C-alpha cells in the first residue's frame, strides 16, 4: 500500500437529541418513555461500546453531539428516579418472560438475553456512573477518544427563527452555556439542528467561539464558489468558521430504507414487540394505563423479509451480519479514499453523521456495528483513520473560502418538513412572542428590577425557547404524537403570554411563577438580558 493510499480520514458524528419532556405535574407521563427507551437502548449501549474500546486500547475517534435538552434531562433528578423505576419494570418483565417461555427454549434464550441486558444496563447506570451518564461521556472526552460538541438550546430550526437575529443568537449561546455548565468546557464544534444552515449563521457561531459545524452535501455543493474537493474537505465560511458536509454514500448505507444495513433480514424486528402480542391480562402492568398496548422493548423476532412470517431472532446470526456490514462499510470508505486521493489536493475527510437514537433503538445491532467499524478502522494496516473535525482542522490549513447554501438534511433537503400545511401556523406565534420578549426587556432597560420580576422575565425566556424546539413542527408533519406536539407549543406560548401579561401589569403571582419554574426547569442560569435588542454580549446593563 502506498503512502498516498493510506491518507484519508473518516469522521463519524452521532447527534443525540430528544425534546425536553418532563412532567412533574403527573405521577407518570407516557412521553417521558422517549428518554427512558433511548437511555436503555442507545446511550448506555453506546457507553458500553466506548468502555470496551477504551479497555482494549483501541485508538478510535468519534464525535458525539449532546443537545442541551438531552443534557438537562440526563442530569434531572426527577427523570433519573423515574428512569430507575422504568428499568426495574423492564427487568421484572424479562424475569416473568423467562418463566412464561419455559416450554419454548428459543424464546426463553432470548428472554434470558433481555434479563442480562437490563441487569447490565442497571449496573452501568446505577453502580458504574451513579445515575449520571454525562460522567461517562466526559470520561471518554477527557481520554481524547470521544469529541463532545453540542447544538442549539432547544434544537430550534435556526433559518425559520431568523426573523430575529436575537432568537438565533440565544439558541446558540444558551445551548453552549448549558453544555459548558454541565460538561465543564466549551465545545469547539456545533451541530446545527437538522443541519439547517442559512448564510450568515456563521457570524453568530463565530461570536460564540465555534470553529466548525455540519451541513448536508448540497449545502457545500451549492456553495457560493464551486467546492474544489467536493464534500470531502471543509469550506471556510469567510470568517474562519468551517463547514463540513455529509458524505451521501456513507449516509445511504446506514439511513436508506432500500440499501441500508438496518433493514437486513437477520436483524431484530423493531415492530414486533410483546406489548402488542401477549394477552392483555398478562402484559397490562407494563403497558399504558394497563390497557393501551405499547412497545415494551422485548422483541423476539427478526426482520425475516417483507410479507414473510416472522422468524425467531438469532443473536449469533445477527452478530455475524454486523461484522459483515462493518467490513463492507470500511471497504467502501477505503475505496472512496483511494479514489479521492487521485484528485484531491489534501487528504480527504469523509463525514458520516447519524442520529444517535438510530443505534440501538431502531437498529438494535447498531451499537455493535459502530464498535466493529471503529475497531476495523483502527487497524494500522487500514488506509482509514478516524478523526474528529477539530483534529482535522489542526492538521490542515489553507481551506477554500466560500459560503454554503441554505439547506437541511431533512426530507427534500430544505425547510419544507418544518414549515408546511401541518405546522406553519406556529411561526407567526413564535415570532410574535420573540418580538414581545425583546420589547419587554428593552422597556426594562435602566429600571430597577425586583427579584420576582427577574424570575418572571427569565421564565418567559425559557417558555420562548421551549416553544421554539424543532421537534414540535417535525412531529406535526410526521403525524406521530401530534396532539402532544400541539399541546406543548400551545402550553409554552400560553405560559409566555401569561408571564408577559403579568410582568407588563406588574401583577406577578409567586405561586403561579413557582409552578412554571417547577414544570419548565431547564436553563437554570438563563439571563433575560440576552433578549435586549442592542445586546451582543452577556453583560447585564448597568
Amino acid at each position: 500500500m502506498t503512502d498516498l493510499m493510506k491518507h484519508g480520514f473518516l469522521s463519524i458524528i452521532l447527534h443525540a437529541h430528544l425534546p425536553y419532556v418532563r412532567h412533574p405535574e403527573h405521577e407518570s407521563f407516557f412521553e417521558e418513555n422517549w428518554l427512558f427507551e433511548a437511555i436503555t437502548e442507545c446511550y448506555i449501549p453506546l457507553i458500553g461500546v466506548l468502555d470496551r474500546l477504551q479497555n482494549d486500547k483501541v485508538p478510535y475517534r468519534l464525535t458525539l453531539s449532546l443537545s442541551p435538552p438531552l443534557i438537562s434531562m440526563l442530569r434531572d433528578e426527577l427523570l433519573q428516579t423515574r428512569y430507575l423505576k422504568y428499568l426495574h419494570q423492564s427487568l421484572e418483565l424479562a424475569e416473568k418472560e423467562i418463566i412464561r417461555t419455559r416450554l419454548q427454549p428459543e424464546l426463553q434464550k432470548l428472554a434470558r438475553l433481555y434479563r442480562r441486558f437490563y441487569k447490565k444496563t442497571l449496573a452501568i447506570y446505577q453502580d458504574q456512573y451513579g445515575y449520571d451518564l454525562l460522567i461517562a461521556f466526559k470520561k471518554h472526552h477527557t481520554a481524547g477518544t470521544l469529541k463532545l460538541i453540542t447544538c442549539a438550546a432547544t434544537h430550534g430550526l435556526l433559518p425559520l427563527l431568523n426573523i430575529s437575529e436575537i432568537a438565533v443568537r440565544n439558541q446558540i449561546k444558551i445551548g453552549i452555556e448549558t453544555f459548558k455548565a454541565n460538561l465543564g468546557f466549551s465545545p469547539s464544534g456545533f451541530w446545527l439542528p437538522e443541519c439547517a444552515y442559512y448564510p450568515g449563521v456563521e457570524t453568530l457561531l463565530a461570536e460564540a467561539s465555534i470553529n466548525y459545524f455540519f451541513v448536508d452535501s448540497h449545502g457545500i455543493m451549492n456553495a457560493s464558489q464551486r467546492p474544489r474537493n467536493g464534500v470531502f474537505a471543509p469550506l471556510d465560511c469567510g470568517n474562519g468558521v468551517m463547514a463540513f458536509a455529509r458524505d451521501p454514500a456513507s449516509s445511504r448505507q446506514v439511513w436508506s430504507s432500500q440499501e441500508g444495513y438496518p433493514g437486513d433480514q437477520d436483524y431484530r424486528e423493531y415492530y414486533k414487540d410483546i406489548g402488542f402480542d401477549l394477552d392483555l391480562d398478562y402484559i397490562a402492568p407494563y403497558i399504558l394505563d394497563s390497557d393501551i398496548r405499547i412497545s415494551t422493548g422485548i422483541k423476539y423476532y427478526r426482520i425475516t423479509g417483507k410479507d414473510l412470517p416472522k422468524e425467531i431472532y438469532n443473536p449469533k446470526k445477527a452478530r455475524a451480519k454486523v461484522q459483515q456490514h462493518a467490513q463492507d462499510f470500511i471497504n467502501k470508505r477505503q475505496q472512496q479514499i483511494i479514489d479521492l486521493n487521485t484528485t484531491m489536493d489534501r487528504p480527504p475527510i469523509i463525514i458520516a453523521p447519524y442520529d444517535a437514537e438510530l443505534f440501538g433503538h431502531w437498529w438494535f445491532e447498531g451499537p455493535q456495528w459502530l464498535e466493529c467499524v471503529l475497531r476495523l478502522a483502527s487497524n494500522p494496516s487500514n488506509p482509514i483513520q478516524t478523526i474528529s473535525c477539530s483534529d482535522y482542522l489542526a492538521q490542515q490549513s489553507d481551506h477554500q473560502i466560500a459560503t454554503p447554501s441554505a439547506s437541511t438534511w431533512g426530507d427534500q433537503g430544505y425547510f419544507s418538513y418544518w414549515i408546511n400545511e401541518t405546522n406553519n401556523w406556529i411561526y407567526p406565534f413564535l415570532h410574535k412572542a420573540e418580538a414581545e420578549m425583546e420589547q419587554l426587556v428593552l422597556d426594562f432597560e435602566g429600571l430597577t428590577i425586583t427579584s420576582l420580576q427577574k424570575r418572571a422575565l427569565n421564565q418567559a425566556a425559557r417558555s420562548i425557547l421551549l416553544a421554539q424546539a424543532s421537534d414540535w413542527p417535525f412531529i406535526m408533519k410526521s403525524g406521530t404524537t401530534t396532539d402532544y406536539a400541539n399541546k406543548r407549543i400551545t402550553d409554552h406560548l400560553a405560559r409566555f403570554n401569561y408571564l408577559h401579561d403579568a410582568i407588563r401589569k406588574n401583577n406577578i403571582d409567586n405561586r403561579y411563577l413557582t409552578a412554571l419554574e417547577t414544570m419548565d426547569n431547564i436553563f437554570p442560569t438563563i439571563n433575560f438580558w440576552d433578549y435586549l435588542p442592542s445586546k451582543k454580549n452577556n453583560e447585564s446593563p448597568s
Partner: protein
Amino acid sequence: MKLTQLDLLEISQEIRQCYAPKMSASTPKLILMPVAPKHLYAYWSLGNNKSIPLQESSTQPLTLRIYSASDKNNYLSKGYEDIPMNRTQSQQDVFLSNPTNGASYQASLGTCFSDNFLDVIADSNLTQLPQEKPAITQVKADFRPLSTNKEIKASAYNNDSGQGIK
C-alpha cells in the same frame, strides 16, 4: 413554596385556557420565510384599521408584489412578480415562477390598481431563497424519530414494511 402535583396541573390547565396564543397586531405586518428553492411562505396582518373593512367590503384582491433585493430600486418598472393573495387568509404559500437561484427577496402587500400601482399596506423582511440542489439522493428521514405514540405504534406494527421504515 411547595406545590403539589395537583397544584401544578391546575395552574398549567388554567394558563392554557386563559392565555392560549391568539394572533393580533395593531400595525400592518408582512413576513416572508424561505421554504425551498422556488417556495416561500408569507404571513401577514393588515392591522386594526384595515382588516375588517377589507375582508367585508373590498372587492379588490390583495396582491403580494415580490422582487429580488437587487431589483428593489427599480421594481416599479420591472423585475417583480405579482401574486394574488387570499383576503380571508393571513398566510399563504408563495411559489415563484422564475426566481433567481439563491437570491434574496422582499415583498410588499397591498391592493393593485389597473396601472400596476400598488397601494402598499405592509413591506416584508428580506429573505434568501435556498439554491436548487444538484441531483444527490436524499437519504435522511427514512427512519422516524424516537416517538412512541400508541396509535401510531400500533399502526406501524401492523404495517409490515420492515425495520424502522415507515
